[in-house]
């Protein structure tokens, strides 16, 4: 028990402490106040995390494993980065802090065996989305000298938060609610339940290998080249033992006689994280995948339509763009109508 236990209302106390810290941080004020806010906020987050661990221990009935120190540190970094991002008066720095959040949450992903997602997160978020933000910031950000109330190089609307108290109150309400659900719901299985869940998940993981015939063939080829997987009467290729190890039925042509055998598979033969995710994507959520692609397509269209510069074209320009002859008689102006035509044509000429 590394941290002292707290009362059942610890969640609210910790949340309130964090909220006070954030409130001190979010308002433009003296540096000391903001330092104090940082400390108070960190204390609140620390209390919260320790309470989370304590609750898990209490529900399990003893220490539920070691302290996940690295995830805790990464989490602290993420929360601190997020706080700084929210409070930083300069959007560019805020975006950089957001990258810090993304990177640390990618670290969290790694600690939860979601390697593919960790790197995808960094690539997509930090690499693509944030770059887009940067570009837009550079496109749209006012230069600091244009703002009269410019302090520390930030514009007024970036510097002064809007109704921070109300926002933090609402945030606290949400935090308390969500925290209650998290703390009140059952934790990850432990003991026998965990073993059963692991066994079930292991079987499922091995079964996924049957959906990956090429990988299976590669594994078989490592042991006995030329052999192929042989389904049993149930159509199963893999036989999974109770201890979680798997063996594959193979058959090969040994000089005219077909011989069958079962060869054990190493743990490394199990589908990797990427393969699992990809398989789930196409096997479990094909419709969602299609929808996602449609969303992206629509977003692309939308971005093109939105970003296109709207240019007011006159009648003549549109005719010209369509490959038609111009209407205005530039070369042969009739006498007497020249003034009217010229005055009508003038703005067109001015635009072009």
């Amino acid at each position, binding site marked *: 028990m590394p941290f002292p236990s707290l009362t059942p209302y610890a969640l609210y106390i910790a949340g309130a402490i964090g909220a006070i810290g954030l409130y001190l941080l979010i308002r433009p004020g003296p540096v000391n106040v903001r330092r104090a806010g940082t400390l108070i906020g960190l204390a609140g987050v620390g209390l919260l995390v320790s309470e989370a661990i304590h609750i898990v221990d209490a529900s399990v009935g003893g220490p539920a494993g070691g*302290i996940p120190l690295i995830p805790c540190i990464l989490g602290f970094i993420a929360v601190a980065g997020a706080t700084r991002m929210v409070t930083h008066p300069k959007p560019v720095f805020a975006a950089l802090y957001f990258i810090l959040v993304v990177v640390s949450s990618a670290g969290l992903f790694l600690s939860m065996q979601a390697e593919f997602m960790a790197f995808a997160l960094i690539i997509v978020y930090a690499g693509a989305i944030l770059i887009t933000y940067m570009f837009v910031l550079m496109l749209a950000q006012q230069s600091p000298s244009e703002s009269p109330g410019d302090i520390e190089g930030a514009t007024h609307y970036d510097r002064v938060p809007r109704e921070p108290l109300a926002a933090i109150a609402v945030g606290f309400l949400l935090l308390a609610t969500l925290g209650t659900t998290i703390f009140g719901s059952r934790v990850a299985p432990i003991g026998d339940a965990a073993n059963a869940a692991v066994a079930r998940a292991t079987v499922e993981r091995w079964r996924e290998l049957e959906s990956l015939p090429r990988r299976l063939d590669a594994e078989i080829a490592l042991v006995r080249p030329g052999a192929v997987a042989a389904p049993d009467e149930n159509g199963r290729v893999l036989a999974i033992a109770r201890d979680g190890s798997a063996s594959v039925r193979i058959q090969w042509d040994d000089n005219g006689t077909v011989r069958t055998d079962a060869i054990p598979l190493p743990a490394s033969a199990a589908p990797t994280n990427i393969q699992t995710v990809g398989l789930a994507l196409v096997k479990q959520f094909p419709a969602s995948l299609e929808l996602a692609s449609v969303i992206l397509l629509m977003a692309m269209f939308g971005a093109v339509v939105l970003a296109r510069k709207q240019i007011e074209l006159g009648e003549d320009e549109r005719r010209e763009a369509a490959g038609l002859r111009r209407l205005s008689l530039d070369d042969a102006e009739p006498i007497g109508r020249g003034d009217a035509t010229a005055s009508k044509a003038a703005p067109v000429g001015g635009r072009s």
Partner: protein
Amino acid sequence: MTTVLPSLASGLASVALAASDAVVSPADPRLVQVALVISVLLFVIGLIGFLTRRNMIMMFLCTELMLQAACIAFVTFGRMHMNASGQVFVIFILTVAAAEAALALGLVVLLYRKRETLSSEAWAELKE
């Protein structure tokens, strides 16, 4: 310190790729809980940022933060149940986030062209 060091070592070990010889390893309940708390914290901070920042780009950045929190929650739940559905949802979130970034930022640029400011308070037509 005697307790901290081994736990640090085990934490590092958990980060190491494919360190376990088991096909599926059980989720650490403490880790799950901590990750969920962090995701909630990130979400709430993002929300507060969305509500307090006046810069429209910053508001969208805060929504990205909230999406990020949702991603963490999904991955955590996936880990908790030891399947890949959570991570698949993260892919969808990334999709939506990318689409949102493209569209929302395009809109922001358009709005900026109209008013020459990024302040959301320049747009108060909703009260009419």
